């Protein structure tokens, strides 16, 4: 039997989980707006924005940016920003049975 992930079971893509860590968001505490309650990148970003306004970051994950200076990571952060809009309308797949 395989162990579950060390962060617990979260229904979100690996890229979304990584984004949450970069933004200092505890993804387990995010309410998912995707199909079935899946956590989307937009949800994570909204949670990050909400946290920012009260000026407190989750202490579990290191902040993104300065020390994560690989091309990979920077690209992903940039591209993820652009994708928020696209991700927002994937709730529509609920509408098609089977």
């Amino acid at each position, binding site marked *: 039997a395989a162990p579950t992930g*060390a962060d617990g079971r979260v*229904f979100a893509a690996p890229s979304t989980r990584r984004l949450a860590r970069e933004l200092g968001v505890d993804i387990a505490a995010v309410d998912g707006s995707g199909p079935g309650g899946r956590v989307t990148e937009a949800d994570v970003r909204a949670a990050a924005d909400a946290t920012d306004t009260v000026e407190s970051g989750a202490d579990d994950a290191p902040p993104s940016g300065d020390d994560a200076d690989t091309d990979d990571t920077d690209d992903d952060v940039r591209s993820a920003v652009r994708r928020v809009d696209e991700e927002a309308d994937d709730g529509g*797949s609920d509408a098609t049975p089977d």
Partner: protein
Amino acid sequence: MVVGDISTGTELLVVGGGPGGYVAAIRAGQLDVDVTLVEADAYGGTCLNEGCIPSKALIHVATLADEVESAEAMGLHARADVDMQGLVDWKDGVVDQLTSGVEKLCKANGVSLVEGRAEFVDGETARIAHGGEGQGSETVTFDSAVIATGSRPIELPGVEFDGEHILDSSDVLDLRSVPESMTVVGGGYIGMELSTMLAKLGCDVTIVEMLDDILPGYTEDITRLVRNRAESLGVAFSFGERATGWEPAGDGVRLDTETEDGETASYTAENVLVAVGREGAADTCNVEALGLEPRNDGTLETDATTQTSVDGIYAVGDVAGEPMLAHKAYREGHVAAEVVAGEPSRLDYQAIPSAVFTDPEIGTVGLTEAEAEAEGFDPVVGEMPLRASGRALTLGADEGFVRIVADAETGFVLGGQIVGPEAAELVAEVGLAIELGARLEDIAATVHTHPTLSEAVAEAAANARDSAIHTLNR
């Protein structure tokens, strides 16, 4: 080079060049960490030299020989002889190609390679004893270290390995001829894979297992298929017996066993393979100098960053505990390197897949129905039997199934159990679905190529939604 006098510094010291260690080193190199990899024996570790790769190479050829000899019903009449020496030589060539590939990849990614056995001196220094007489040693100072020293087969008291009568899995992968008979102690995945392979090569195999079934952790509807097929290949099983000792008997070995009730039995064969599990090898590099204490099974405790209880000291792969699988080692090595490089990496996978390369093959990932219940889900299960799969029938295979476990409420895919040809490959799609938080509908609505076995994955997902086409819905 002045022998015995060299002292170098490195940002990251990786001890052990198996799947855990070499991946950590390569990934660290990619992230511009100054990294040194020390390997005492052979690059690629157990996996490439005496584990995954050699076993699968031998299994492939044994299976091909058996398959073609049992294909009369398909109009194929064949006689196949395996020359074990030739087979092992070919396997050695495959291993050499891959281990030299690992060496090249390390170098290309900027990893400094050192051959020798590393032992920690303190939290920032290790001594590396070079192999062979008078090869001397060197000292390395490091900022961080990854312990990737792997595991070794567990030895049974009274039935110690001697490489001649009592063999471990590595010995079996280097046989120069097929023994007429073998007693195999242990019906775990290594015991079952090698027993099936040996039986297909014509060896009379008897499996002695302490528990009352093979393949612990797998449900009975899976183990039964593997047991039945092994029996039809001539493998005999004795359950509930513990090996206690052995005697030479003629040219072979008499193995003595005992049940829990004290009943004894004995099995005589050309040799004995003991495959009763593996234990961590945390004891090869003096971890005590770091302030670490291995657990009873020789493994080290780690957290989601792969870090041990000591800051800056990481452990990955078999030495970091179960599941002792190469791809778990890969992932841990990857995460360790990224954490050392300052990335927000974590072991955050939902599931580690497993495969057993028996006949039929098994591929599983995530939760079984019972596990899903235990985790508090209300599971729904979909199944597609292979006898209803066109592709399976064209392969002459009709035993096995694809089973998908999901959460009834949300449809989220939680697990998959697959038995049959290419099960280890097919489980990849289910694994991706689990990681992505995909739902049954997502798999069922994805168009799958006809005729393939992967269609059975989609049909199983549809079956859980009562909309399968090629199998009856519940």
